[in-house]
């Protein structure tokens, strides 16, 4: 496991033994372990074992969907400005844990400190960028429609519902934030499967959610084996949309077939783009209102004028 010491023991007789963190799941605002009692070893990019991460079961996933379902009316019903403020506060708390994120991203992704710092800073800034869309996206995507008859007609976006996210496999924090923030700002609630090999920064992010004002159940985070969990997420009929960015290529057909069975909305990687090749530091590429729109439904309303 990771270097198990820091500083010096209080009695001076050797190094201080570090208090290690148990990485758990985040479901409905609580931090359960898997009901299955299983875990798997997560290693740093250099092969050093870092921690035992929870190997979630299908039951954990169903619990997470239930939590997301319960949280949806409250989250989608917030005023847009309030949702924006709650999400902005996540960035405030990330900033406070900046050093911790830098250390975790550096270990998980094998980055030097300067590069890891750049990645974490960008993740915080990106969160701020997306949070700001909460009370603006309706004005960008909505419309008043000049129909050729005496009717008042307008179109407004509404959140799709519960979105399953298969997070990017390589970019453990910045990639995850870039895919998580858009559906959240739209008012969806989320069940997110972290990177399988680099899950730890995501779990630390859940500690930020727990101490922010994001209501429990709005974001639910699971770690584990994608092969085991992704098809269950894709087939779950209470999941309305699916971000398949981090779905391994060999699972993609099966997963999208499951998603077709109940007409889930899909959000995919750009055509031909490998997960590992996407440049998450490129703001033009990763800051996209379209990613918010992917999990919005357009509602058009008609009313007669004058009768």
């Amino acid at each position: 496991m990771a270097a198990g010491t820091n500083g010096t023991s209080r009695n001076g007789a050797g190094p201080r033994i570090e208090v290690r963190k148990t990485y758990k799941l985040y479901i409905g605002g609580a931090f359960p372990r898997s009901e299955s009692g299983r875990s798997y070893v997560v290693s740093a990019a250099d092969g050093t074992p870092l921690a035992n991460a929870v190997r979630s079961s299908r039951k954990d996933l169903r619990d997470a969907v239930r939590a997301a379902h319960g949280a949806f009316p409250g989250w989608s019903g917030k005023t847009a400005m309030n949702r924006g403020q709650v999400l902005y506060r996540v960035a405030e708390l990330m900033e406070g844990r900046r050093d911790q994120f830098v250390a975790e991203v550096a270990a998980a992704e094998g980055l030097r400190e300067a590069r890891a710092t750049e990645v974490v800073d960008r993740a915080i800034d990106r969160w701020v960028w997306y949070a700001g869309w909460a009370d603006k996206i309706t004005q960008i995507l909505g419309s008043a429609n000049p129909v050729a008859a005496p009717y008042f007609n307008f179109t407004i976006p509404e959140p799709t519902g519960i979105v399953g996210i298969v997070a990017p496999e390589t970019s453990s924090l910045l990639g995850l934030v870039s895919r998580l923030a858009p559906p959240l700002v739209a008012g969806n609630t989320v069940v997110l499967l972290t990177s399988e090999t680099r899950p730890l920064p995501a779990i630390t992010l859940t500690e930020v959610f727990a101490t922010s004002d994001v209501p429990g159940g709005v974001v639910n985070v699971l770690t584990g084996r994608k092969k085991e969990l992704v098809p269950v997420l894709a087939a779950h009929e209470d999941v309305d949309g699916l971000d398949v960015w981090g779905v391994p290529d060999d699972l993609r057909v099966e997963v999208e077939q499951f998603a077709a069975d109940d007409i889930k909305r899909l959000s995919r990687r750009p055509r031909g783009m490998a997960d590992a090749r996407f440049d998450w530091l490129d703001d033009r590429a990763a800051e996209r209102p379209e990613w918010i729109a992917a999990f919005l439904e357009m509602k058009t309303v008609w009313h007669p004028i004058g009768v």
Partner: protein
Amino acid sequence: MPSMPERTETSVVVSLDHRPNSWGFGDGQAIPWEYAPAPEARDIVTLKERYGLFIAGRSVPATGGGTFTSIDPSTEQPLADVALAADVDVDKAVRAARRAQRRSWGQLSGRERAKYLFRISRILQERSREFAVLESMDSGKPIKESRDVDVPLAANHFWYYAGWADKLDYAFPGRVAKPLGVAAQIIPWNFPLLMLAWKIAPALAAGNTVVLKPASTTPLSALLFADVCVQADLPPGTVNIITGPGEIGMHLATHPDVDKVAFTGSTEIGKKIGRGVAGSDKALTLELGGKAANIVFDDAPLDQAVEGIVNGIYFNQGEVCCAGSRLLVQESIADTLIDKLKDRLSTIRVGDPLDKNTDVGAINSKAQLEKITELVASGVAEGAELYQPACDLPERGYFFRPTLFTNVAQSHRIAREEVFGPVLSVLTFRTPDEAVEKANNTRYGLSAGIWTDKGSRILEMVSRMQAGVVWANTFNKFDPTSPFGGYKESGFGREGGMHGLHAYVRLEDR
């Protein structure tokens, strides 16, 4: 298949003694109004004996020479033979579309594309009578509707998107909109020409080329549209039309050289198409079934609501994905409203689609008539109360009486499944919460209707409906500028309006 119960077997059919007159006053005295036939002349349409596929700007027979017959559902008489496309014909059509996308249509500026689309719109206007008559002959819909709704809306759709072709930069600020490439488009039989316009106009405006497959029971207006493309001098291969059964559509949708699939039809087939293109990177939009709730509150303008309910479910024989097939009435006004509705039903004229007085024409096909008949029989069997006005039906052709069920439970098949016919299920509610609960208690989410005089209640109900189109104090209104599409299993993506463009573009960084 259980047969439709005889009218005389049901206790709810009004006898002539109690029958309201055609003014709908229900005084039971007057003799029903008789209408002289007012048929629209068919001779404006010159039917060919045989229609080919439209590939690369030319009409060509199917490989192997296969054909099938399109019939007039109001007479069961054949109209024309139509080429039965083979898989290789689909491949040819996709190749032609690819070539045009690379070399001709895809090379044009938006300004030039716009002018072609304006031309098409104008030609549709100029030939509107011909299209309306042909559409009614091939589909069974009343001429009143094809003339006043389908054809003008189709022309307007091309007009609207023509203007977008050279303004895409303004539709997607900060991004460059690029065409997706070749679009495979599969459309249903309920609005053959209008669905063609909904599909082709935005695709072409954005610089895509298309291969379109009309429904096998209604191919003729699409094949006449091929003639419009020729008249407009549209570059060959920009629009290709192939005809044949569903398997041909599936072959088209899953074709490896197709970039975009747009399907309108049943949820069942939509799922098959979704499975077919899974993992392929094809862009997909689906416009699927519906089971719309039409909710009437006790303060609604009742006579207006009755017109809206009738328009909501009997428009186009109820063969409308967004039809208001579940009427939710507040309990306190249910009896009054149902009486008014029954009165109004007795004035509906069912019959010859080409008659200008006809309100409800022929059901599109024998198969659809059987499906409607079977579902109506299930409604009776499950305990709902059937009402049909005592109108005469033509002896030949696929006709079905406007039907109303009361005492319907949410669990009944007629309250859950899409009938796609002139069949209304009436349920009641007491509170707005109950109305919302019942309205949203369906896997579909295409449309909804709300009738009340209270503005704040309209807006609350609007925001609580899980539906892509909400009509308040109106129903079944359509416009090219107005986005249309579903929530939940009614599909995804929008057709119409600025949003309809999104389905046909790839956004790149500026």
